[in-house]
């Protein structure tokens, strides 16, 4: 147990010019810098995607509004959805994974540092390519207008006939490129976790966040690849005149749906599973107890990973599958509720009997528990096929998935920010601003997404740019739009907090939360090599063992 404590000299004072520093970032292969770049990149796109959402909400605040034209509105929801999923949620998960996983498993870098940098730049390039569609270029007919086919781009809307010009090409090329980036990062993540754990860290002693990341990465391999394949097919259709999704030549529009959702459904679990990881790190620390039922937590995650590959057609209950298909996908979908429930209950078990400290990361995590519960239950409603025939394609679905994605993932990510920011920068985020951010965001979130269920129940379809008065939808849409503004202000406060605290925040020290995992043994921010000597561990809470040598964890494992 000698190697775990170490005093490291602080960074060499930086005396580089701005150009040198930028060059340093652009050419870095250090997992921490790449992680920070992923996160920064995602935050920029969060603001962009958020502005697109605000534009939609202004348009929908009043019936028969003409703040934007239908064409612009359609581009807004397409780009909003695509951006948020591929350029916000995915990169932010990869960013935190990149930053923390090598630290958590006690190694110095990712398994393939250069591949890591390459993957980041692929993702960034894919995003730029997609956003370039707003600008376009000379000789590109129809460029300068972003894609407007929706984030799942159902065929045959993406064929040359219905989507002339190049806007849809930007969509599929951007996703192919960033998809390769995601696959690269996942290969890297899996290899790092499998091959670079520090001595003593057997699989059953690995921090849950690392477990969640390896499951997530495994899912990426099997989920993003079908998307890539399907995007290649679209490109073949559009450029070489192939007929994969050409209904005139006997092609099938439905097979695109299958291909998309074989990706699309696991994708949403790809996003939620690392969020589970955040919660599984934060909740124990602020309840001062180990995670309840570690083995079953791992088992449940793996189970979710597997089951989620057999449920995709619950997005297709209305496309006219036969009753066997409809029944099969209902039961598999409902089955996911069991392992997910296990996770919720185990977090509850972790809190139970603890001494809960209401620090900002914990506030976000607790809100996550409530909101994810509700979101999951609306998911169960959607999975009941006949009920889905009414709810599908309506604002109820939009409410369901924002409840999971914003109320679940985004809350977990904010928790993660408050939790790891001290490690990343060496400064604490302001607790006061943090609490303000939290409460404003909670209010905004509930105003927006609680009330969004109702127009759905009243028959309001999604993706409509306007609606008539007198259908009973106005008041709900107004509340929803007001809530979005609250969220915007809250995000502004968050961004301000990060900038302000970077210069003015309290010093964090190595271990501000009195936590138990390896990243807290090294300095904040960690040196480039992470650990002066590679640590050895005997349990999943090495720092607990160190702090309580008379009652270490390994006695019980």
């Amino acid at each position, binding site marked *: 147990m000698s190697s775990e404590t170490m005093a490291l000299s602080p960074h060499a004072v930086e005396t580089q010019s701005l150009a040198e520093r930028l060059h340093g970032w652009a050419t870095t292969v250090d997992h921490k810098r790449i992680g920070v770049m992923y996160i920064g990149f995602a935050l920029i796109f969060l603001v962009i995607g958020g502005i697109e959402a605000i534009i939609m909400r202004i348009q929908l605040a009043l019936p028969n509004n003409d703040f934007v034209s239908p064409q612009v509105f359609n581009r807004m929801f397409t780009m909003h959805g695509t951006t948020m999923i591929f350029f916000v949620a995915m990169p932010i998960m990869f960013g935190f994974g990149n930053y923390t996983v090598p630290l958590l498993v006690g190694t110095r870098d990712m398994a393939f540092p250069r591949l890591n940098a390459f993957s980041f730049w692929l993702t960034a390039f894919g995003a730029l390519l997609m956003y370039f569609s707003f600008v376009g270029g000379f000789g590109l007919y129809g460029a300068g207008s972003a894609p407007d086919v929706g984030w799942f781009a159902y065929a045959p809307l993406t064929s040359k006939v219905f989507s002339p010009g190049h806007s849809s090409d930007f969509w599929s090329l951007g996703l192919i490129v960033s998809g390769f980036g995601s696959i690269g990062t996942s290969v890297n993540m899996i290899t790092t976790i499998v091959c670079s754990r520090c*001595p003593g860290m057997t699989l059953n002693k690995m921090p849950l966040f690392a477990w969640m990341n390896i499951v997530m990465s495994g899912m990426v391999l099997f989920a993003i690849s079908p998307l890539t394949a399907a995007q290649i097919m679209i490109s073949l259709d559009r450029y070489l005149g192939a007929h994969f999704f050409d209904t005139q030549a006997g092609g099938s529009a439905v097979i695109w749906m299958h291909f998309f959702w074989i990706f699309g459904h696991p994708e949403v679990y790809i996003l939620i599973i690392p969020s589970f990881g955040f919660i599984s790190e934060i909740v124990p620390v602020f309840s001062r107890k180990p995670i309840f039922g570690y083995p079953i937590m791992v088992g449940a995650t793996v189970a979710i990973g597997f089951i989620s590959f057999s449920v995709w057609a619950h997005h297709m209950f209305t496309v006219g599958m036969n009753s066997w298909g409809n029944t099969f996908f209902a039961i598999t979908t409902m089955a996911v509720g069991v392992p997910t429930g296990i996770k919720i209950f185990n977090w509850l078990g972790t809190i139970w009997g603890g001494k809960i400290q209401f620090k900002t990361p914990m506030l976000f995590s607790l809100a996550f528990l409530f909101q994810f519960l509700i979101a999951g239950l609306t998911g169960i409603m959607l999975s009941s096929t006949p009920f889905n025939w009414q709810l599908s394609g309506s604002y109820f679905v939009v409410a369901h998935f924002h409840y999971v994605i914003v109320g679940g993932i985004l809350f977990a990510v904010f928790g993660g920010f408050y939790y790891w920011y001290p490690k990343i920068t060496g400064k604490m985020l302001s607790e006061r601003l943090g609490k303000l951010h939290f409460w404003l965001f909670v209010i905004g979130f509930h105003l927006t997404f609680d009330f969004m269920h109702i127009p759905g129940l009243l028959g309001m379809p999604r993706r409509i740019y306007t609606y008539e008065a007198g259908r009973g939808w106005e008041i709900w849409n107004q509340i929803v739009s007001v809530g979005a503004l609250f969220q915007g202000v809250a995000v502004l406060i968050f961004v301000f907090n990060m900038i302000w605290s970077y210069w003015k925040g309290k010093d964090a020290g190595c271990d501000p939360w009195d936590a138990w995992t390896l990243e807290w043994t090294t300095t904040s921010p960690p040196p480039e090599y992470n650990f002066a000597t590679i640590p050895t561990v005997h349990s999943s809470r090495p720092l607990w063992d160190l702090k309580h040598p008379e009652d270490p964890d390994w006695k019980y494992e």
Partner: protein
Amino acid sequence: MSSTTLTPPLTPPPIETPWVLPSRGKVGMFSLIAAESAIFTIFVVAYVFYIGKSISGPTPREVLELPIFNTVCLLSSSLTIHFALGALKKGNRAVFTAFWALTIALGAIFLFGTAREWHHLIYDKGLTIQTNLFGTTYYSLVGLHAFHVTVGLFGLSLVLAFALLGWVKQEHYGRVDVLSLYWHFVDVVWIVVFFVVYVAGR
């Protein structure tokens, strides 16, 4: 779970030494292969789904011939690469280089065969990717595989160049082995493609 008694610091059980974990190259390659298999699966599914759904000719039965010779070449290249590695493991670099070159030759013959087949289909039978659903799925599936063979050949040739320069030594066995995994994967995919396109689909 035993009850706790307050004791002075305990000594943890020893850690398993040496601490060995799987090789990075292999784990990385297996992950990549997993992703690649998923891509191929989608193309195979599309092929199978569209069998017999073309609304105009030609049909596979009319134009496809069994590429037996090609298949034999590609599959035997899996054997030769295996022999090459066996030689390298023993440190026999000359035998390694010879078998490695043979592997490349077999792969190249396969590619050439595919090119001839396509030429025949396009110019004699008038089947292009635009002709019908069969053309669409056939060229994309076989083409995707041929693309992988090309990438594989590129990697193999690089190693051959290094070997001829005398840079590939026994201690590089691990890395070369990782490359060979990829080549085996390309071969296995061909078996699937062969059965789907030339046997079941005809």
